[in-house]
């Protein structure tokens, strides 16, 4: 009953999106939008209703999972009555159909939110935006209903379900996909805004000011989603890695890079009326990357630990949608953007120039990740199989990212339109001195670390200082939220960079086959392996090791890593024991027993590694402050720009 209701709601939502598209197109015809017209006024409520219906459909799926309704094929294939309720809940999106339904729901709800809350955009651009959003939704509704129906029934009803992949039975994993999707799919709003503005030829500062909060909101979620995913991989996979340049990870990074560039570009458009074509292009690219990522993950075209059930037929369906939407948007771009009035030019030493360089470098990194991820397909077409992994990405993207961070430090210190390079040198002098000092210290006390981590550790403190420089000599209580947001977000980048470089340069590893009673060392810690005990949980059994750890002469504490075996489906996982201290993390995992009764222990001391994700959270928080500031200003009718 609920399943049929969910499916019905989905069909209704699809029908409404068709209606939204038709009404929007009709309202935009010459003469159709001139006078207050029932068509115009109908588009907004239809969009809201579509969002509500899609959300109801998704809630229906959640309900089916929570009740473990095994008559629904998806629940039977991906859930189990013995699972904890949190993982029944999260299991709804731990599979292709459910996550695709979440995808479409976020798309519909985002469109509904624009219809409900957007007040500043010109009427006809808003209609065009909603029509574009509806066009996208229509294709993906079709995909869902025709090729990935989450609500199909199973007959006869099985006695028990197959269970959820144990790697996904984790609180972090419950949080990561929805957060990521709010960002990844939420950026569709920017795409629709761009298409709408191209249609109504409304690319200008007012348009940018209206679009900015939506970009910010999606970007915040995307930042959080990627950060959460990285931390989850780090503690769950048992080897201490936090980024693998896996195709699916890259699929989430590419929209983030584009959205970050878009965020900055939209501010130049809002403040200085410049970078119009860039802004439109970035908005199109950001969501295009999201759609391409969705395609890569679900078509089986690239091998990945993350890939969903592989189905080339579904892949072909999505590819057709991509051709329609991205091809359509890029064609519209080619046809219309030359009619967009360009803004004033600016000097080579100016904040606009720094933002152009910022866009450039972000786009280059985006291009490199894109090419690197897809290149195996190119050589495959030529008959050769290659792999493109961390050695390539780190080597090409790393130096460019470092240059980008250096420019990020300089940008906020520059004035708009025209600044003096001697002034810049004066303002940037303190950070450069900090860099030099850091470099000296590292070369003296930590020789032998790689060139990239060395540069990272040198640049990070300098950029941290440069990030807070805009607050220098300001009345902090009168500083606008969006300035605080910028400062904290940029500081977060420096913090994250410091974490990444430190982890790369200073991690200490000890691998040992230990007998109970044996003591070993890693970094400043001495670790005594006390005992190994069997232990059981709701749907797993495990071997748990007990370790007593001391740091130098400090107090002893216990760690208990586990090697688990889940029951359905039978899968072994490693549950690492992590101890977080002020300057890093001690990470311990247990492996197998060897023939002499010794147990394999893996121990890592990772100095400052938590800064990676603390930095990520800071970036998102900075974005949140900026968003709140913008929204507050809009509500109070205050001017959006304060020339900082």
């Amino acid at each position, binding site marked *: 009953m609920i399943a049929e209701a969910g499916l019905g709601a989905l069909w209704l939502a699809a029908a409404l999106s068709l209606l939204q598209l038709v009404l929007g197109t009709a309202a935009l015809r010459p003469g159709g939008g001139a006078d207050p017209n029932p068509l115009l006024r109908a588009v907004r409520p239809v969009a809201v209703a579509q969002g509500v219906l899609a959300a109801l459909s998704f809630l229906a799926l959640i309900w089916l999972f929570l009740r473990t309704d095994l008559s629904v094929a998806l629940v039977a294939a991906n859930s189990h009555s013995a699972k904890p309720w949190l993982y029944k809940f999260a299991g709804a999106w731990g599979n292709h159909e459910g996550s695709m339904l979440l995808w479409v729901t976020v798309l519909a709800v985002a469109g509904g939110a624009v219809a409900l809350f957007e007040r500043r955009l010109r009427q006809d651009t808003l209609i065009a935006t909603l029509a574009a959003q509806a066009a996208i939704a229509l294709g993906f509704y079709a995909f869902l209903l025709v090729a990935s129906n989450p609500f199909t029934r199973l007959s006869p009803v099985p006695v028990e379900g197959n269970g959820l992949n144990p790697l996904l039975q984790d609180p972090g994993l419950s949080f990561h996909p929805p957060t990521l999707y709010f960002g990844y799919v939420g950026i569709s709003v920017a795409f629709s805004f761009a298409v709408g503005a191209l249609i109504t030829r409304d690319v200008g500062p007012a348009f940018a000011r209206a679009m900015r909060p939506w970009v910010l909101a999606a970007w915040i979620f995307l930042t959080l989603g990627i950060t959460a995913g990285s931390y989850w991989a780090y503690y769950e996979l048992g080897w201490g890695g936090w980024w693998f340049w896996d195709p699916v990870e890259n699929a989430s990074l590419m929209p983030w890079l584009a959205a970050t560039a878009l965020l900055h570009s939209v501010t130049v458009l809002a403040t200085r009326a410049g970078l119009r074509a860039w802004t439109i292009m970035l908005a199109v690219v950001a969501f295009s990357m999201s759609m391409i990522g969705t395609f890569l993950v679900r078509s089986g*075209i690239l091998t990945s630990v993350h890939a969903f059930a592989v189905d080339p037929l579904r892949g072909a369906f999505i590819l057709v949608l*991509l051709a329609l939407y991205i091809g359509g948007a890029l064609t519209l771009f*080619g046809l219309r953007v030359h009619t967009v009035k360009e803004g004033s030019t600016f000097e080579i030493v100016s904040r606009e120039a720094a933002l152009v360089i910022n866009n450039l470098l972000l786009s280059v990194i985006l291009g490199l990740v894109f090419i690197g991820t897809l290149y195996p397909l190119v050589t495959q077409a030529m008959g050769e199989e290659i792999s493109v992994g961390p050695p390539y990405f780190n080597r090409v993207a790393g130096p460019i990212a470092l240059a980008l961070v250096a420019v990020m430090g300089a940008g906020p210190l520059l004035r708009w339109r025209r600044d003096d390079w001697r002034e810049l040198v004066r303002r940037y002098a303190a950070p450069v001195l900090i860099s030099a000092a850091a470099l000296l210290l590292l070369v003296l006390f930590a020789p032998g670390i790689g060139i990239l981590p060395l540069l990272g550790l040198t640049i990070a403190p300098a950029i941290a200082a440069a990030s807070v420089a805009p607050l220098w000599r300001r009345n902090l209580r009168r500083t606008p939220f969006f300035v605080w947001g910028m400062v904290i977000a940029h500081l977060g980048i420096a913090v994250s960079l410091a974490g990444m470089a430190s982890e790369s340069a200073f991690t200490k590893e000890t691998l040992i086959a230990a007998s109970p009673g044996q003591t070993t060392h890693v970094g400043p810690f001495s670790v005594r392996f006390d005992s190994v005990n069997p232990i059981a949980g709701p749907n797993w059994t495990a071997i748990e090791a007990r370790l007593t750890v001391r740091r130098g002469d400090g107090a002893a504490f216990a760690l208990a890593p586990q090697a688990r075996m889940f029951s359905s489906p039978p899968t072994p996982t490693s549950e690492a024991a992590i101890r977080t201290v002020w300057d890093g993390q001690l990470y311990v995992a247990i492996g197998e027993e060897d023939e002499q009764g010794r147990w394999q222990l893996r121990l890592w001391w990772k100095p400052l590694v938590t800064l990676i994700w603390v930095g990520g959270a800071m970036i998102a928080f900075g974005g949140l402050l900026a968003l709140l500031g913008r929204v507050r200003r809009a509500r109070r009718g205050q001017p959006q720009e304060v020339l900082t």
Partner: protein
Amino acid sequence: MKRIVLWVPLFAFAVFLAVVASGLYAPADRNIESQLIGQPVPEFDLPPALTGRPGLSSAALRGGDPHLINIFASWCLPCRVEAPQLAELSRRGIPVDGIAVRDRAEDLSGFLASYGDPFRSIGADNDRRVQLTLGSAGVPETFVVDGRGVIRHQHIGAITPQDMVAIIAAYEAAR
């Protein structure tokens, strides 16, 4: 901005579509093949996996007549599926040598007792050294090696009745 530049993104997207479509319609063979086909068998010398039967060495493969080398293990389920086919090959006079990967003698003899024993010799490869040397990426795999010790053919996966024709043909070609 020059007009032609505006169309570069669309063109780049078209290239992307072409690359990806080719990947979709000619999907990659997920099997990892050995690169040593056509090259001499690398030197190796494996101890016997079972008492009373010789181990396997590369020297033994240069004896003048072609051999089948079957890389298998008692813990490998598809190996059970191909046992009848291997027995049939051995019955036809094709010499079948085995490399047992990470196996214990008792498990191995149990496997052979249950599923048949077509092997003239079985080498014990307990750390996968020789499997990696030959460019084999899993079990079961079968190589056809000719009389001069040159690898002529690789079959990945269990040998099904439908594969027999190709294997026999490869063996004949290696003579």
